[in-house]
């Protein structure tokens, strides 16, 4: 499971860097970088990210999960996706 988490973490980070932070130094995007509250993700990029995660991992997000509680950092995102995969 740790491998799975690491893979999700890496894939998500790569997607965010490529789509929303082109040219950014990857080391600047840390596990705790605030994505929603920090303005990296707005509503459109958030649904884009959610679409990517749903399609990549075959999971479904509930509307209430699109919030800072679950998506504000890479760590929280990874934990949510991992939990969904674990319960699938």
């Amino acid at each position: 499971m740790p491998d799975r988490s690491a893979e999700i973490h890496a894939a998500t980070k790569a997607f965010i860097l490529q789509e929303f932070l082109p040219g950014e130094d990857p080391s600047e995007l840390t596990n705790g970088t605030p994505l929603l509250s920090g303005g990296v993700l707005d509503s459109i990029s958030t649904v884009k990210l959610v679409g990517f995660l749903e399609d990549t991992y075959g999971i479904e997000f509930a509307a209430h999960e699109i919030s800072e509680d679950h998506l504000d950092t890479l760590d929280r995102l990874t934990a949510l996706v991992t939990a969904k995969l674990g319960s699938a």
Partner: protein
Amino acid sequence: MAEASIDSGATSQGSSAPREFSPALRFLALCVELALVLGLTHVFELEASSGLLELTPWVFGGFLLHAALPARWRLRAFLALSLAGFAVVFGPALAACMVALGLTLLVICHLPVPWWLRLSLLGVMGTLLTAARAEWVFTDWSLEINTILPVLGSIFMFRLVLYVYELRTENPDLTASQRLAYFFMLPNALFALFPIIDSKTFRRTYYDRDALEIYTKGVRWMGRGVTHLLIYRIIYQHFTPNVEAVSDLGGVLLSMVSSYALYLRVSGVFHLVIGMLGLFGFNLPETHHHYFLASGFNDLWRRINIYWTDFMMKIVYYPIFLRLRRRSPTRAMVVATLSVFMISWWLHSYQWFWIRGSFPMTAVDAIFWSLFAVTVLANSLLQARAGAARSLRGKRVTPRSALVHALKVVGMFSFMCALWSFWTGGSIDGWLKLVSAAGNSPPSDFMWLFAGVAGALAVGTIWQLVAQRPWTALVDRPSFRGAWCSSMALLLGLLWIGSPQASGFEDNTYVASLRKERLNAHDEARRLRGYYEEILDERHDLGVLGQLAQGKPAHWLRLSQTDALMAVSDRLYDAEFIPNHELMFCEASLTTNRWGLRDKDYSLEKPPNTVRIALLGASIEMGTGVENHQTFEARLERQLNEERAADAPQVEILNFAVAGYSPLAQLDVLNARARAFEPDIVMLVAHTIDPQLVMPHLARLMERDKLRLNPQLQQIVEKEAIDPYLEAGPETKHDIWRDQRRLLTWVYNSVASICHAQQIEPVWVFLQHPPNPSPAQVLRGEKLHDLALKAGFTTLMLDGERVYPADRWASLTLRPWDNHPNVEGHQRIADELLRQLREHPQLLAAAASTTER
């Protein structure tokens, strides 16, 4: 999140803010700053109609007490303070009623029954409250309840949706204090226009930073709110042109920009509310963040009211998008975005209903929201396709990117000004007419406009380039000491301006207009006209009228909306009072006698040794909002009889006034009704608004083919070619005044000739209402006076300063939304009229001698 974990956040010391003051000194400095902010609300009487001034001691004292309490008690203390605030503003009984109704809604949410049953019960409760708010039921208790429903509605109309949503999806374990504090927040006792706050955000941000840091933010935001409200006043009083009089490009631009800038009042109130919550540890997200500087539609949507945006995303956008995404993400985005705006439109009417009592759905609203929807959607689709690159370190600004950004900001601001003026203008025709007025300007005016835009772009571009210089960080992120000094300098400056004796600005009109919440000249005139002739439709009440009318209960009706009147078909007026009728009108009892007069009973035949006065007028003379015995007519009659000599004739004043009657109607009342009572004196009360009332009345008579009822009137209209359909505008101003003057001349001459033919003394009384007339109104009053003198009236010009002293005006009117004179106002009118009659002793003496004959 449990309350314990919230409370533990209160003691966290995670702040990285510089602290060159010790915490104790910093807190003391904040207290001084807060005292100054709250003091300014008193100096300028900010949001006085909402009750803010009564609550400022509670806010200040509550803040000190709350901050001194152990962290675990603070949330309960905030709840207790909030409930006390409701009791102060609404009285203990109504506050208890509001809390009981709110608790009932919350209890329903937690009943141990299936969700469909809970939602059905909430629906039943909602229907009952709707029935009370819309006054489908009309009982004593529903009237009482209605006074608190705007506030109860504003608290629950959206928050209950979020609460139920959260209960159904996550069902967090919360304490009773957390649940109740979310609904019953202190600022809601004052401001109905703060309905939405996300429940999770409310809890998550509670003491999520160092307490002093949050308090600092709260005080600064309140200060910013005060500044917004003061700028709003300046714009409203001095830079909001009368749309109907706009005649050139400058006027069009000023009208559009000012209509958008008036939104400062909303943002000011939001800053006050969020700041006030910050004083109690709620570190809520910033709202209305530099919204005039939005660079696109999505940017504006996020900036202008982030609370509304988050609500719509959570409840509408994400659920729809996720449901449709797998078929087509683009289609999902289109449907979700359009749904957000269509539902926003409906919810704004829903919000309007709870706050104002009506549910407007107009073509202008439809166009406004549709345009907004289409532009945001286009922006979203472009962004989804092209992507929106961001940077964690901030982008480097180049001259080109700065210019592009400046272009976007100027373009967005211009578009919003145009759109806002359309929305708040109320009619498509009116807005098109406003825009077309720009065509009257010479080409040089357009050159100036282009020069102005170019200047704005240059300033915006340079500003961005300068702002990325390292030294500007000192300005952007000043130390506490630096920020405190700047804030204090601004607040003290405002205090100095607001203290005319100290500043020497006593006679400055700008400073005077800052000091009170009042309508500007053309809105004041428009409101008064509405009382008389009901010319205005509801949409004209937008803007400051709408704000003032927030507390207006739904039962505060126009006379024609009550059952007081019966239609008449053969007169120049449409309706008259039902005889022997009693009703509550504007919260005062109104009783008519057997003759259908709002007065005590009189015989048709004049009693011996009696001087009889027939009073002709409209709503002020009728006594809107005061009891029968409190009208100036009743008071004057009593005072005249009390002070008369034993052998002097008694005085009877018969009140023929009816709200909505123009001078044309008053002439007909004299003809058809008053003459029969054998008056010795006819007292016709005039106001500066009269010329504007006779023309719509004439138009109505013509539309209903009623001119034939008075051949003389028909003749004068034809002979003088009086056109009541002339549209107001600079080019027709003189024609309209000419027609108004001709018609009023005929009315005055007719009244005087009827009186003279029957040996009745015609008396023309002029009352300036409201006070502080514009130069044009003063001139109009003088012209009316001339007409009355030429017609042969004895004229009595009531002294405006005696009746409505400048600093007493607000306390002499009924309510913030209704400027008819209240009980004291009527007393002052009676006193002044009595004084005038004493100065003209020949009037009553002559009438008495006639009586003796």
